[in-house]
């Protein structure tokens, strides 16, 4: 055996083991799912491939001014601590390699200090090869003994490092894609959350919960209330830190008028703010004194976004997103997402406030549609019931009215198509038109004709009205003589004191659609103890699945009422029948008016 063959054999063995290491490295890199995993893989099997004793991977931060150590192998702990960050200048070998995109090779310790005096006195390697990794970082490979590197060796190292760089870039890209997907999912979720709740406090609490940790380590939501800026929600990945944020807020409350308030600035300008990274200069600009600065520094903010909550041109508050515990930095994409989130939240707040205001308006309007109190008519019981469909928001189109005239009284009930303020205005018009017309028109059908003309003149398109109007005159027997006209309205029901049912009124045309309506007057007498029941279609159209209460159902309820029942108890029975027919609030408004002469009419009134 010659020396040459030994050399060849050992070369082959070395090559074999290096190939094996290389395969392991490739496999590990391919399996890396996160940027950190790819970086670790570069060092872990990587160190064997490069046959190095130490290695450092450093990444350029977003500002491009500093390198941050991403992973270290082989150096004592104290070196790692010293080298957490270093500036991006030619005075450091790794910086120099990334800046020039060329390998930096140092063959021995004397050369290292001569070329890089800044490294004097630090724990270090004897020989060093620094290679750039793309444009985002670099790797330094250290050797305990002096060493030379030939071209083939350097070429090999460069090729392997390129493979590692690609893996890191891919995982970073995946991570960015993942974050984008996360951001989109967040927005979708926020939209759903806002739709669920009309209470903006709940809504904004959810914003903060959604943002952490998907978009922030810490999220603060401030809302402008009449009393000032109010911190509505604070969420932190480390719940322990919430107290510190709250404390800061108590000592230095965010104030829209305070020049040294970042949130205040955003509220004043209406412009979003992206601070990435948070610098000492920024901290100084948003703090009022040294203790404030200390408190803010203690939060350890690395990056932040403040977006205003603006709806319909009004600034309602601001959302602050902060990265502190994680080392992530915000970018323009995050700013866009945050702005979308704020837009949606602001709209939700605005809607909630609008909803509140509309409910108030609705209540006030509804008040105008219905009489505050029914007149007291001697010898006649009159009761009315009104059930609003669903929540208070939508003002219904149902109305009723009872009023005294000279020696007689009028009873009106009606239903204007549609809902909301438009319908409410029409309803109010209808109610008052009938009342006024009743004073000078001789018959109920003429009264409804006036209403028909009035609606045709004033109505917005697609709106019409049904109404029943009855004119009642007390008679000598203690009962009342009634004349009724129906304009597209369900007829009334007469419940005779012996339990018999009769229809009150002849069917007529609904009002507000055309001039030539067919309206007729029907006369009947209510003896003492007889009852007239008028209601809107909400009663007979009350449904439960495929069943409907119907006129038949109403008739059944009324037939079941014993003689002597008061107007009040009859109205209640109809109301109960409607409510109990199906679960849930009625889908349509329901109005019920019950008129019952008792027979106890003072003679002078009857004679009038």
């Amino acid at each position, binding site marked *: 055996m010659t020396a040459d063959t030994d050399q060849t054999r050992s070369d082959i063995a070395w090559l074999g083991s290096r190939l094996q290491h290389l395969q392991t490295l490739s496999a590990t890199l391919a399996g890396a799912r996160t940027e950190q995993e790819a970086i670790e893989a570069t060092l872990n099997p990587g160190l064997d491939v490069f046959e190095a004793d130490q290695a450092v991977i450093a990444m350029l931060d977003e500002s491009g001014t500093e390198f941050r150590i991403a992973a270290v192998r082989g150096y004592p702990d104290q070196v790692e601590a010293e080298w957490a960050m270093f500036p991006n200048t030619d005075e450091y070998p790794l910086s120099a390699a990334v800046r020039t995109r060329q390998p930096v090779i140092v063959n021995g310790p004397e050369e290292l200090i001569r070329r890089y005096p800044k490294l004097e006195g630090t724990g270090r390697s004897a020989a060093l090869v620094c290679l750039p990794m793309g444009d985002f970082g670099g790797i330094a490979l250290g050797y305990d003994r002096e060493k030379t590197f030939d071209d083939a060796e350097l070429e090999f190292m460069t090729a392997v490092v390129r493979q590692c760089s690609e893996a890191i870039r891919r995982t970073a890209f995946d991570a960015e894609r993942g974050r984008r997907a996360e951001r989109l999912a967040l927005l979708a979720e926020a939209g759903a959350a806002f739709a669920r709740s009309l209470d903006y406090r709940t809504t904004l609490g959810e914003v903060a919960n959604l943002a952490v940790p998907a978009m922030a380590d810490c999220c603060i939501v401030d809302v402008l209330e009449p009393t000032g800026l109010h911190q509505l929600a604070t969420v932190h990945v480390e719940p322990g830190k919430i107290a510190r944020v709250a404390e800061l807020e108590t000592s230095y409350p965010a104030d829209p008028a305070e020049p040294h308030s970042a949130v205040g600035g955003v509220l004043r300008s209406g412009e979003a703010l992206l601070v990435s990274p948070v610098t000492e200069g920024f901290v100084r600009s948003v703090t009022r004194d040294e203790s404030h600065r200390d408190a803010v520094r203690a939060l350890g903010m690395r990056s932040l976004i403040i977006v205003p909550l603006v709806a319909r041109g009004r600034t309602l508050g601001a959302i602050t997103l902060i990265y502190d515990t994680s080392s992530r930095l915000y970018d323009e994409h995050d700013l866009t997402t945050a702005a979308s989130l704020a837009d949606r939240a602001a709209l939700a707040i605005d809607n909630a406030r609008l909803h509140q205001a509309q409910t108030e308006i609705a209540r006030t309007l509804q008040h105008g549609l219905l009489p505050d109190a029914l007149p007291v008519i001697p010898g006649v019981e009159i009761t009315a019931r009104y059930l609003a469909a669903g929540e208070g928001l939508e003002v219904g189109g149902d109305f009723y009215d009872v009023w005294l005239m000279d020696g007689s009284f009028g009873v009106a009930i009606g*239903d204007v*198509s*549609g809902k909301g303020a438009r319908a409410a205005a029409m309803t109010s018009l209808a109610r008052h038109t009938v009342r006024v017309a009743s004073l000078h028109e001789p018959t109920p059908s003429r009264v409804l004709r006036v209403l028909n003309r009035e609606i045709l003149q004033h109505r917005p*398109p*697609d*709106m*019409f009205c*049904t109404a029943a109007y009855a004119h009642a005159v007390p008679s000598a027997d203690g009962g009342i003589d009634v004349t009724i006209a*129906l*304009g*597209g*309205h*369900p*007829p009334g029901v007469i419940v005779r004191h012996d339990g018999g049912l009769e229809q009150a009124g002849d*069917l*007529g*045309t*609904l009002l507000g*659609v*055309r001039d030539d*309506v*067919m309206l007729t007057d029907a006369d009947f007498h209510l003896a003492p103890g007889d009852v007239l029941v008028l209601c809107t*279609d909400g009663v007979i*159209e009350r*449904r439960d*699945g*495929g069943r*409907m209460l*119907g*006129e038949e159902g109403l008739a059944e309820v009324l037939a079941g009422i014993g003689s002597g029942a008061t107007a009040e108890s009859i109205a209640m029975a109809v109301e109960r029948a409607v409510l109990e027919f199906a679960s849930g609030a009625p*889908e*349509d408004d329901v109005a019920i008016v019950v008129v019952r002469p008792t027979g106890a009419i003072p003679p002078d009134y009857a004679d009038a």
Partner: protein
Amino acid sequence: MSESSSIEVARDGDVAVVVLRGEHDLSTADRLRQAIERARDGSTPVVVDLTEATFIDSAVLGVLIAEHERAASNGSAVGYVVGAGAGHSVHRIIDLAGVAAVLPISSDRATALRAIRS
């Protein structure tokens, strides 16, 4: 309430036929309005057949009235069919509202189609 309801648009020569099935109320009124609008597509004559409807409320009636007025004002034509098979409440609401004389209502589709083509 309206899970058993449907609105279908078919074609009978030059006339679009909108067929209502099942229950129709405030919750489907807008869909009906849109279906009629689409079927009209400018000036196509439209027949709305309610024979298979089991229930309509005043909101649906409102759509039928409004579409009749719209057709009258823009020179297009609309007709309605309420056959004997329509739900009792469908007949009843038309009676109660007194619109049998107001709306062009036929008792079968062939009559409605003839009327709208004449």
